[in-house]
């Protein structure tokens, strides 16, 4: 079980958080004029990164804030966004 550094509450057990996925994914600013290919790629395809991954996490059982961390998916080493 990971120990996740919440920028507001400090290090807390993974149990308190909800994983929010790849933080590099961005919703196209104008979906209507986005091509179907681009849109389908945004909605359905996600990278399964090996190594450093910028991720959203939600401190659901705590301060209810969303924040980003960099997690190494191989070693689970975590870098808070403020340290980047």
């Amino acid at each position: 079980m990971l120990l996740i550094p919440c920028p507001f509450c400090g290090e807390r057990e993974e149990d308190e958080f909800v994983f929010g996925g790849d933080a590099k994914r961005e919703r196209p600013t104008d979906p209507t004029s986005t091509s179907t290919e681009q849109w389908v790629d945004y909605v359905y395809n996600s990278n399964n990164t090996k190594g450093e991954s910028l991720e959203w996490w939600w401190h659901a059982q705590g301060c209810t804030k969303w924040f980003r961390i960099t997690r190494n998916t191989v070693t689970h080493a975590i870098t808070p966004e403020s340290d980047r």
Partner: protein
Amino acid sequence: MTRLQHGGSIDRDQPLEFTFNGKRYQGYAGDTLASALLANGVRLIGRSFKYHRPRGIVTAGGEETNALVQINGTADDPGFSEPNVRATTLKLTHGLDVSSVNCWPNPNLDVGAINSLLSPLLPAGFYYKTFMAGPWDRYAGAIRRAAGLGRVPKVPAKKRYERRYAHTDVLVIGAGPAGLRAALEAAKSGASVMLVDDQETPGGHLLDVKSGDGNHAAIQALAADPQTADLINYVPRTTATGYYDHNLVVAVQRQPDDAPWIYERLWHVRAREVILATGAVERPLVFVNNDRPGVMLASAARTYVNRYAVAPGQRAVFFTNNSSAYGAVFDLADAGITIGAVIDARPEPEQDLIAACRTRGISVYPNSVVIKATGKKQVAHATIASRSDLTRTRDEACDLLCMSGGWNPLVHLHSHSGAKPVYDERIAAFVPGESVQNERSVGACNGDFDFDTETFDIDALWEVGHNGTTGKAFVDYQNDVTTADIDLALRENFQSIEHVKRYTTAGMATDQGKMGNANVIGVVAQRLAQRPDDIGTTTYRPPFTPVSFGALGGADRGALILPTRNTPITPWNLEHGASMNEAGANFRRPFWFPNPGESDASAIARAAIAVRNGAGIYDATPLGKFELHGPDVPQLLNLLYTNRFDDLKVGHGRFGLMLREDGRLLDDGVTFRMEDHWLMTCGTGAASGVLMHIERLLQTELTHLKVYVVNVTSQWANICVCGPQSRAVLQSAGVDIDLSGDFKFMQMKSANVAGVAARVARVSYTGELSFEINARRRDALALWEALIAAGKPFDITPVGSETSAVLRIEKGFISAGTEGDNITNPFDAGLGWIVDMDKPDFIGKRTLMRDLEHDIPRQHVVGLLPEDPEFVVAEGSALLPREGSRDFQGHVTASCYSPTLDRPIALALLKNGKQRHGEEIVVSGLDRSIKAEVTKPVFYDPKGTRMRS
């Protein structure tokens, strides 16, 4: 009796009675079950997993794989049952009742032993090959009964379990000499130190060697040092069972000193640094019948003599390939046990050891091996041969055959942490490799042995080999894996050690290769002419020793397993005989309110009729409720919902449909515009997901929007009065606003109802005229009771969730969780009327555009009228074009008997359903297939005039 006259750390003044296989025995405080059984001359403990071979006690510790027992009761909990407990670590208590596992009627006369005769039919991979063919369900039961070990307990344990959490700078695992020193050093440096150890007292392997040993005394002094005691949080009787990410170690503590009423306590320890001092366990040697009762690890025999004052045999033969066994030889000889011979596989054992044997009158045979143990349920002879000529044999009589094949450092926790052990030629064993987490191994688990001989010398001997003699030589006792099984696996080209493991099951199960793994790797290396480090180890997985479900669950049992949420009306519901059930977001709700003697179905129908014709009252408090504040709420809602909200007037509400970005239903509900904020309602079970969705948008993508959200689900109670008489009920209860005229459907007004300040909304969950009354939680019960009293003349009826579901199916109100099944889009669900594709953007819009571009057949929500007026089709039943067809065209999503229509109805998802109203289709359930007519998904008041009335 085989109890020695003197010695041991047992308390001879405290005799304890216990029962094994129905027979009463006596042991002493300080005994384990294994030592007490050996002291009573009991050698045959149980039968093996697959071949039902007789098995005895091999070890004196947690690595035991043979002497497993079933606990059938303890003095404080006579009904207590626990399977597959290791006799070697089970502390003897007064009144303990245990029996053998995997044998019937008893280990002496075991019917299942026929498996041993059938063994040519049961080689490795037998499962994979056999179960490919034929009707598995016919023979599964018989095979499952024949294999396996203990029995699952039938009644809940009365014993208490709990969980604890700890944070520490340094966690030291193991209180042997190395662990104690490490803990003391760390404590002196100012760090907080937790020291866990699986024994009663510190000392590690020194507890097992002869007392009076100088080193032992030094350790006792160290352990007794008051300074040490102050600095170190020492937790005895605690086994670390798993090492997880970010230095989390899980450990099980038995009967803690601070809370003796706790049977097991599960620790979660987060440590800045972990020091592994888990020691090493001796490994068996691989020769024919090396599993016979009486064949024992040399170190275990030594432990039984020194620690428990038990002679595990009267005439012992030792078989070793290393120098460590001699300490055991001397201790056994000095305790008065006859040593028949010491068989040393090494060509040139140390001269001083040979000399020390000679002074005790013990013969040492260098360059020799034991190729076979004979005797049926008990070893009787060791067949000895020269290593250079295995055909020249002689038999040596013995009732104890002590073996030492070297030592396996306990690298398990190191392996759990993600690191890879590496082979160390010097000790012919795997030792910790490079650390992945902040951990270090010290002492024997790091390969630094501390035996009483000057040096440790070993001649790797993975298996003894054949001279044509037949019989099984086991590499893994627990799973009954033999060298022949490894040969078979290699012959079938399973050559990677991971494949060998899975094909033969060696190193699997609760043992996790503590005893056998090194020998398996060694045998495979030898066969493939490779080195053990080229073969590598398989991954040791948690738990290190089995963890009971009791410990994992802790106090979370019964009512505490899932705390339920109550509404202010719950006490009234319970008082009025409601059938309560858990229904979304942990809320406990009434499902129906049966009258005395009334059937459930009748109670559900009676309430439905009351709502359609008179008045019902429903507690809708669990509904998710959020307040949205800020100037940009309209913008947010326009993006969240498929329809517009920015044009909603104050005092009005609107039904909204919320989608995910993939265009599928997330939730639906009514949102009201209040004077200075907005009030959103959503499905009970969906509330936490909806909140997460909104918070995510606001905090990540729409940070420019000035909106904040407050969850007020528990602050507001919601009582729904529904049915054509609901207006009259409210008026009779006393309400200070006009309930007709300009109070239209989908409006909300502040009002005083029966003396309670409230908000009244005209929305409908049932399709009837309804008033939802939102009141402060503390006022809700009084309001409910006032409404019930006022409704008496109208025969107001309390409505449970099941009735509510029936009313919704009649109206064709879909549920986001059933009809919306991650494939259904709003058009499929008949909710196209609420989707505003002209809005510039909303979440899910772009994917809906794509759905509309593609003309692929989709499943639509339809109604079904089954032809048999008595038969309610099962939810989940398949829809087929005709009887016997395999063309699956959809499934039933909701089904019930409709009291209003007096016939069964159903909602379903059906391929091209919108175009098929009036068609006949076959509904195929598990028991029965029947015909049904496809209809519009609404069975009652299709125009919705009643709810607007």
